[in-house]
């Protein structure tokens, strides 16, 4: 416990109302079913909050919520998904000052924090625009040697487990989450910086994003990731935030139901992301139909 003792004389005239950082599952903010929490300090070691320490059962609940949301979310028109994602960017921009402060707590300078928030908003906007374009880039009408219409379209793979990257708490999170959901997948994220992630969940919760499309868990990744990687109802896992050792273990566990595994796709979040994080979470469906009269 690092909360410093304070003299009575230091008591403020008005006591600030703190936020309880909980999990984000199925559109709600529950505490961990385990009842556990862990202390989050700022970069100087000062107490910031007690974050929820998610358990394997929270992983389970989050996957159920994500699966339940998948049909509806993937069934939205791409235009509608794009609008909702853009709305999220608007909400993010509106909370710019809050994110800058939270990022500063993680040790960033004001300038770096502002740069990261701006980059995160811009990245989210960039991905939002892909919603109704990716199919034209990744899909095709195939010239087969017969009287058939043959069309390949990209489709979301399903429920995606995401281990958010370390280092750039907001930009990293945004850079792995947006490409997963913009195409219609739903996600269960194990956050890196719990406070930034949960504040981001508040943005999601106020942006018309259907419940369960994104679920955010906080807690030790080594504890949660294997449950996510081994879950038979998760279709893919992004190991961006896993250590070498954890990633190896997750990759092996992911073989249980042949998850699509995203690994080694680059972690320079300031670079042009390209489409690879989207296409890696897409299936190609090819439909044939005879052409006749």
């Amino acid at each position, binding site marked *: 416990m690092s909360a410093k003792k304070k003299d009575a004389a230091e008591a403020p005239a008005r006591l600030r109302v703190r936020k309880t950082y909980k999990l984000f599952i199925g559109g709600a903010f529950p505490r961990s079913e385990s009842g556990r929490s862990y202390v989050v300090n700022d970069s100087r070691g000062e107490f910031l909050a007690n974050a929820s320490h998610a358990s394997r059962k929270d992983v389970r609940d989050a996957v159920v919520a994500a699966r339940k949301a998948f049909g509806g979310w993937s069934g939205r028109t791409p235009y509608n998904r794009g609008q909702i994602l853009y709305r999220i960017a608007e909400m993010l921009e509106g909370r710019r000052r809050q994110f800058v402060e939270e990022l500063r707590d993680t040790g960033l300078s004001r300038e770096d924090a502002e740069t990261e928030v701006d980059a995160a908003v811009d990245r989210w906007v960039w991905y939002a625009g892909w919603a109704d374009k990716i199919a034209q880039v990744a899909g095709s009408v195939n010239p087969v040697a017969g*009287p058939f219409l043959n069309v390949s379209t990209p489709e979301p793979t399903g429920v995606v487990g995401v281990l958010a990257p370390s280092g750039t708490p907001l930009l990293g999170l945004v850079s792995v989450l947006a490409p997963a959901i913009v195409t219609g997948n739903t996600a269960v994220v194990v956050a890196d910086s719990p406070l930034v992630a949960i504040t981001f969940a508040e943005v999601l919760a106020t942006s018309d994003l259907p419940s369960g499309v994104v679920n955010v868990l906080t807690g030790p990744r080594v504890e949660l990731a294997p449950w996510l990687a081994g879950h038979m109802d998760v279709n893919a896992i992004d190991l961006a935030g896993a250590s070498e050792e954890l990633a190896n273990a997750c990759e092996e566990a992911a073989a249980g139901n042949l998850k699509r595994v995203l690994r080694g796709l680059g972690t320079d979040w300031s670079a042009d992301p390209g489409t690879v994080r989207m296409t890696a979470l897409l299936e190609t469906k090819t439909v044939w139909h*005879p052409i*006749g*009269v």
Partner: protein
Amino acid sequence: MTDALSVTPTNELRGILHGLPGVDQVGVEARAARLGTRSIKNESKARAIDLAISMVDLTTLEGSDTPGKVRAMCTKAVRTAPGAPAVAAVCVYPDLVKVAVDELRGSGVGVASVATAFPSGRAPLAVKLEDTRQAVADGASEIDMVIDRGAFLAGDYAKVHDEIVAVKQACGSAHLKVILETGELATYDNVRRASWLAMLAGADFIKTSTGKIQPAATAPVVLLMLQAVRDFRERHGRMVGVKPAGGIRTTKDAIKLLVQVNEVAGPDWLDPHWFRIGASSLLNDLLMQREKLATGVYSGPDYFTLD
């Protein structure tokens, strides 16, 4: 329902015909092509050739036909080649029926006459019926009528139906073959519907084409008509024959047809009573292949008469 003689409302016929399962063009063509890859060898081929000969409606339908030409063809119809069977029938224009009947008397070879303002069918019903009656009176044992394709395409199914019923009545005991002229019906769905329409009106045979319009007896069209007679028997208990005509020139074509009959309608139809092939030059190719099988060497056209 089978031999309905009353005037049938178009709506009822539309309900029946449009309730038939659709036909997927690519699927039916692929199936026909695949049946065409059957390989018929040796003794099977020999049997198939003789069967095909016995199913031929040896045909001449030219403006230049003369009694002499018809008489020569009739001779060939009976004496195809030494040891070979006779054909099933000859097929001529109505005015030459008498010539053929005289020539073929006692031979067992039938005389078929086209009728009903063949090939276009564009004449008043009374003319068509008189055309038919005359041919029957002259001794034709089979009448090959054409349907009113215009009425069919206009959706006037009752007109087509009732005309067939009337012609059937005019035929008396003569067998009625109903020519659909599938090349003018354009779609496979129409071929299926026209087949059923003809059968519902009492056709003894459904026939693909006049031979004057291309495409004529294509493999998918014959396949569909064989499915139609198969399904019609299943539903109505009456067997109807099938006659492809037009463009069938080689033994290979004929054997492919027999494979279709065998595998689509079933072996019950492998009989001149239920399957005919309308052709002229086909006969000599069948005879030539027959010779090849018997002697082991390829024959040539000079060894077969051109009548």
